[in-house]
């Protein structure tokens, strides 16, 4: 086996893949599709989420291609509307919500707390099947001609006027929500009851704190979108009148109920990413995370406060002025914990011993993009300013900076960082760095011009636009192409590494954390003996300096 791009500190002769590990513990399809092993379930999610990501990205590419020119010359209006809707529905419900928790969370949480599996392995498997069912429904909506309501399904357009496959798409999202609830339930119980001896709450890795906070949101917020979508689907199917003003209904009630979930949902998306970054920044700097308890409590703070800001999506919806002011205040408050975390991560680098390996690139990439995403939220939180900016490309840029620049960058970084643990292989380091750079550069080129054209007034979900906005759109599409390459590359070299990558060994990065004390890939059941935890997290002071 040729070893390519082995980390430079290797002095040990070539390692061998462990004889028994969870990957070779049964090769049949049945052993995968009926697995109860959290690690295999994580892999199942990884495959399906990756496929959804590629589909969502394809829709995005069509959107950006159309927007290169002001006129509607590539797609008809109806098709374009379906493109951005499908992009949103797939990315939000089938990529962003599950990506980190269901892939990295499922894989790592039991490892990080010293458990053999999650609390409810069968429920875990069920969550994947429910997810796939939801995805099938959503894709069926696509096959039958798509849905054109926007991922937000606003009534009465969705429930009365649209001629597209709203019910299928709505049911798809509804179903995916239950997958999210089951995952969250599992994590809460696992983290509460299955920590190894000595693993007190304040010895938990921040990845765990982040997922705990995320799970609280998943369990409490998701049922509300479920019932909202159900009511919208029933209205559409039966002609009920709950959101239809012609029958006495209130279309704005839909918005309240929708955003009551969908705002906390964005914290479901970003909190796990922040957890990944906490782990990676500690590794990169070879230091404890600065202000550990502040970071932990900030995660909880974001989750809790995040339930009370939904009205900031509705400042100009006919919501009352006073309500808008209250939501604005709370929205500014929710920004503070995120700022605290960012400062703490930065401070972790201070007087660190910083490695220039590929995880650093992802950490810095995340910080660079997340800061912009976060501060642009402040503009939108200011009510008087949001009147102008609402429903323009400024908002589109803001949320893509957080969700893509933040979450996906963190996800990609985490995938790279834990790839050796998951697969037992090393990916080529140089390519990891190239991907991070391409994504960072491509991303900024794609989305920064959107802030400018948004303030100029270009509304979102526009198929055609005034010609004076073109230059910004061309830059954006150019960036999207580079971004696309940045995302495609990892598919190639990481799959390549499965066969040709160097064997990783238990701890190729020399990182702290229970997951790095066991073989790569781990065996089914994870630990030979339940570990007993004596150390604080990220106790790099006791790092063994000889390569394991």
């Amino acid at each position, binding site marked *: 086996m040729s070893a390519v791009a082995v980390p430079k500190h290797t002095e040990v002769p070539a390692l061998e893949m462990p004889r*028994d590990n969870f990957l070779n*513990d*049964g090769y049949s399809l049945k*052993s995968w599709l*009926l*697995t*109860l*092993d959290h690690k295999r379930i994580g892999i199942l999610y990884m495959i399906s989420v990756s496929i959804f990501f590629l589909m969502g990205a394809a829709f995005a590419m069509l959107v950006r291609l159309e927007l290169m020119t002001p006129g509607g010359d590539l797609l008809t209006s109806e098709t374009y509307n379906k493109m951005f809707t499908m992009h949103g529905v797939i990315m939000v419900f089938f990529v962003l919500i599950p990506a980190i928790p269901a892939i990295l969370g499922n894989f790592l949480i039991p490892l990080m707390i010293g*458990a*053999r*599996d*999650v*609390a*409810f*392995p069968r429920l875990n498997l069920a969550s994947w099947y429910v997810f796939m069912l939801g995805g099938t429904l959503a894709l069926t909506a696509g096959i039958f001609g798509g849905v054109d309501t926007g991922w937000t399904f606003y009534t009465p357009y969705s429930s009365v006027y649209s001629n597209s496959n709203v019910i299928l798409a709505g049911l798809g999202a509804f179903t995916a929500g239950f997958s999210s*609830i089951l995952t969250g*339930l*599992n994590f*809460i*119980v*696992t983290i*509460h*009851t*299955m920590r190894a*001896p000595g693993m007190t709450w304040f010895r938990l890795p921040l990845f765990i704190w982040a997922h705990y906070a995320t799970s609280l949101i998943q*369990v*409490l*917020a*998701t*049922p*509300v979108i*479920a*019932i*909202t979508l*159900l*009511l919208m689907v*029933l*209205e559409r*199917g*039966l*002609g*009920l*009148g*709950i959101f239809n003003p012609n*029958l*006495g*209904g*209130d279309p704005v*009630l839909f918005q309240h*109920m929708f955003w*009551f979930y969908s705002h906390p949902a964005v914290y479901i998306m970003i909190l796990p990413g922040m957890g990944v970054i906490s782990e990676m920044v500690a590794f990169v700097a070879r230091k404890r995370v600065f202000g550990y308890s502040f970071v932990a409590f900030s995660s909880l703070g974001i989750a809790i406060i995040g339930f009370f800001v939904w009205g900031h999506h509705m400042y100009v919806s006919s919501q009352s002025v006073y309500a808008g002011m209250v939501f604005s205040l709370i929205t500014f408050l929710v920004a503070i914990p995120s700022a605290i975390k960012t400062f703490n991560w930065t401070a972790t680098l201070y007087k660190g011993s910083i490695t220039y390996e590929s995880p650093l690139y992802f950490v810095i990439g995340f910080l660079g993009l997340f800061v912009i995403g976060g501060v642009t939220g402040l503009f939108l939180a200011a009510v008087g300013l949001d009147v102008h900016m609402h429903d323009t490309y400024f908002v589109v840029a803001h949320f893509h900076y957080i969700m893509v620049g933040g979450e996906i960058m963190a996800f990609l970084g985490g995938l790279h960082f834990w790839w050796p643990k998951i697969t037992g292989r090393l990916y080529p380091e140089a390519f990891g760095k190239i991907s991070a750079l391409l994504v960072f550069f491509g991303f900024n080129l794609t989305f920064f011009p959107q802030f400018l054209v948004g303030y100029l007034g270009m509304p979102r979900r526009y198929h055609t636009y005034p010609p004076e906005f073109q230059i910004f759109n061309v830059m954006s599409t150019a960036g999207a192409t580079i971004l696309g390459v940045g995302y495609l590359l990892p598919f190639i070299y990481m799959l390549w590494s499965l066969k040709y990558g160097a064997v990783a060994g238990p701890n190729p990065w020399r990182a702290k954390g229970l997951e790095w004390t066991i073989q790569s890939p781990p*065996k*089914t*059941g994870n*630990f*030979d*003996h*339940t570990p*007993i935890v004596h150390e604080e997290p990220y106790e790099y002071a006791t790092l063994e300096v000889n390569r394991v």
Partner: protein
Amino acid sequence: MSEAHVSTATAHHDPFVAHQFDDQPQQTADTHHDPFVAHQFDDRVQQKDAVTLGMWAFLGQEVLFFGGLFTGYTVYRSYYPEAFVAGSHHLVIFWGALNTAVLIASSLTMALAVNAAQNSKRSRLVGYLLATLFLGCVFLGVKVIEYKAKFDDHLIPGYDFHWDGPLANSVQIFYSFYFVMTGMHALHMIIGVAVITPLIIRAWWGRFSQDYYAPVEMFGLYWHFVDIVWIFLFPLLYLLGLHAH
């Protein structure tokens, strides 16, 4: 899929400790191959803690699920108080009250079932579980009667709805909430009936005792929750505007 074939070359192979348990002091020989503890748990205490927390977290989620409906109901009741009263008057209080009594009784039998399990009283356990099942089916039967009556009266929103007078649209909204709320509740009852059945079978086979009764207890939590939801539904749907008579 079990992981029975994981080998731990370095572990002392204690013939009295099954593979999935480690050899930590808290794992005593007593828990050797404990058939009541799933593989991912260390011991019964941990398992009980986990399922209890899991059920409560699940019920928390259910509160939010029904909460969305209650919120919608509250909003529309404040918009259209007369229509809600008019719609409510058309519901037959007798059936609603009967169902309320039935459910409360079923919660009693369920609690007694849990108690029986905790005291290893097998036949009493089976009896109370059967009573609970029976009462649950009575509830569902009454709902069938009520829904059929609505069908006959052309009060199915959207599908077949006729109401004389100008309040029609608002009354249709009332009935939309009536059907979705009671329908969701009935769905939860059906799930309860479906889950209690294997529970009865296992109880009959003597699987539950003071050493292991968590499934009965957890199901009891679920059943009580479904009962409580109905306690809220009944006055909000059936008892509106009675004082105005």
